[in-house]
């Protein structure tokens, strides 16, 4: 009985931290626990959640994707110009295709040429960012159609549309990774690629598809991003790479492959967004922001480790 309770706590340690954070912030700031603020936080977390899903999948396959932010920028910049000059649908399709393409190239460099994921995606990061700069030539594209803006900044019953979109993507990805043989093979590939290959799984295809999916998610996030901000420029998304790694790890997907998963990452991304929200509300000097995130992460590790020791 007692063990079960602790096991539960351990499994949901991240969730507990989230709850503690919520309680603490509600007590500290009256503005925190309001409908609009919570809706805001969820809307703000959405894009991070989407890109972090891609990062999580890459990390589950024992890789990493440093190009997420740049692929996001490149695909959304090109999409933006088409959306402005031609049609919304065509822009979206091309944007998604570019994401898919960049991701697939990453996957191919990793599997067929044998580059490590870090190097392949690090190189892609430079290239995609550079191409975005070249394409935009330092200018910005702004002022999109109402219809397009709805995806990123619309609201339904006061709740950002983004939230619904993220829920949809989450359901799809959870199903894909936890409930299908494809998902199982992703985890197997991440745990032991050789044994998985020898068990008859086309592991190259697994890795390429994961990175392609990754690129696609980055492109989706990019489209929502420009829709939300009503502008596209080459430098967007720079912070997404590091933040998505952080959200993945805080959520509890470790490096080393084969463990964790997208369901945990939601938690990590929301915790990170809440921290920023809380600090803004409490007017903590921006100098302390990175440290606060650091402290909270370390704290969560402490809680997790102590409960683990308690269990044994």
């Amino acid at each position, binding site marked *: 009985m007692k063990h079960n309770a602790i096991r539960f706590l351990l499994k949901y340690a991240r969730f507990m931290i989230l709850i503690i954070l919520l309680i603490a912030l509600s007590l500290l700031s009256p503005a925190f626990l309001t409908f609009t603020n919570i809706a805001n936080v969820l809307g703000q977390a959405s894009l991070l959640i989407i890109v972090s899903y891609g990062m999580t999948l890459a990390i589950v396959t024992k890789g990493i994707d*440093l190009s997420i932010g740049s692929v996001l920028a490149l695909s959304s910049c090109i999409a933006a110009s088409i959306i402005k000059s031609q049609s919304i649908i065509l822009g979206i399709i091309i944007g998604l295709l570019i994401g898919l393409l960049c991701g697939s190239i990453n996957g191919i*460099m990793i599997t067929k*040429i*044998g*580059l*490590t994921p*870090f*190097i*392949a995606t*690090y*190189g*892609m*990061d*430079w*290239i*995609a*960012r*550079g*191409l975005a*700069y*070249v394409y935009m*030539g330092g200018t910005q594209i702004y002022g999109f159609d109402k219809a397009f803006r709805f995806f990123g900044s619309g609201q339904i019953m006061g709740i950002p549309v983004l939230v619904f979109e993220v829920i949809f993507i989450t359901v799809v990805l959870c199903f894909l990774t936890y409930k299908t043989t494809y998902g199982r093979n992703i985890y197997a590939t991440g745990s032991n690629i050789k044994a998985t290959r020898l068990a008859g799984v086309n592991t190259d295809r697994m890795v390429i598809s994961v990175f392609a999916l990754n690129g696609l998610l980055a492109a989706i996030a990019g489209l929502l991003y420009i829709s939300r901000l009503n502008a596209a420029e*080459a430098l967007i998304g720079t912070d997404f790479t590091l933040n998505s*790694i*952080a959200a993945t*790890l*805080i959520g509890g997907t*470790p*490096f080393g492959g084969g463990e964790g998963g997208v369901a945990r990452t939601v938690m990590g991304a929301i915790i990170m967004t809440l921290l920023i929200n809380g600090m803004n509300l409490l007017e903590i*000097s921006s*100098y*302390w*922001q*990175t*440290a*606060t*995130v*650091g*402290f909270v*992460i*370390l704290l969560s*590790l402490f809680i997790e*480790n102590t409960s683990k020791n308690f269990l044994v």
Partner: protein
Amino acid sequence: MTYAKIIKQLKKLPGIIYGLVIIIAFFGVTADYFLTFMNMMNILKQASVLIVVSLGMTLAILLGKIDMSVGSTMSLVGVVTGICLHKGISIPLAICIGMAVGSIIGFINGYLIGYRKFDYWIVTFSNMGIAQSLALVITNGATIPGFDSSFRFLGDGQIYGVPVGILIAMAIALAIIYLSYNTKFGSNIYAVGGNEQVARYSGIDTSKVIFKTYILSSLLAGFAGILLVSKVNSANPIAGSGYEFDAIAATLIGGTPFDGGRGGVLGTIIGACIIATLRNGLNMLGLTPPIQFTLVGFIIILIIIFDVLNEKYKAKKGGAANEA
């Protein structure tokens, strides 16, 4: 040393050295003024700070781990040293205080990762944030300006036309090369990175090895921070940010992969030189940043592909040799 011996030593160098040679040859042909003594010194000087941080990063990666906090440790140590200098504290003491503060970051990293078995990425990432905040808070976000010339000599002085910064970086590099290839501690780092369980089963105190390595990494980062401050003659609280990724890149380009236990600092030094040469060369060609961006990515990937193919070729040749 005889000629044959030199050749033998050269052959031991990581294959990536060819990558460096090719880049130098390329820019030598395409960019005016590239192959001048002054420019070579420039490149080395520009590489020297990166070399020093990358050495620490390489040790962490050899452990099979990583140290994300090196960049902000650089900043923190830099501003602490800067503040001390402005308070009139003597140069050696100011450096010691700065390094001591930096080693606290390493101490926390090492303790939590080595003894408490916390995830290395999360710990060093958190400390990256904490060190960054501390640097900003103690300076109130502002740059600490100008120091006197004896301090500046470290990063910016010259001896017979050779910048002092290069000499210092070289001395540190030699020490770390020696440490990693010729001491028990160095060999233990490889063992822990190769397989922690094997190391433990062989009687190595793996926690201690991890602990010491992280302290060393933060000390090297700290020293790089001081070199940087001396070179730019001012201490900026965000000066080191971004160095962690460059250091990782230098390490990986130099042939030390993430899984740990293989590779070495020698390759990293070449890796850092490749990055510095690339940036310098592209500047010398007068290319605009967008094009530079794209080219940096392409060239890094090309170099690594070249290296991977080279390794494959070597492996194949080795296989054929076994036939005999």
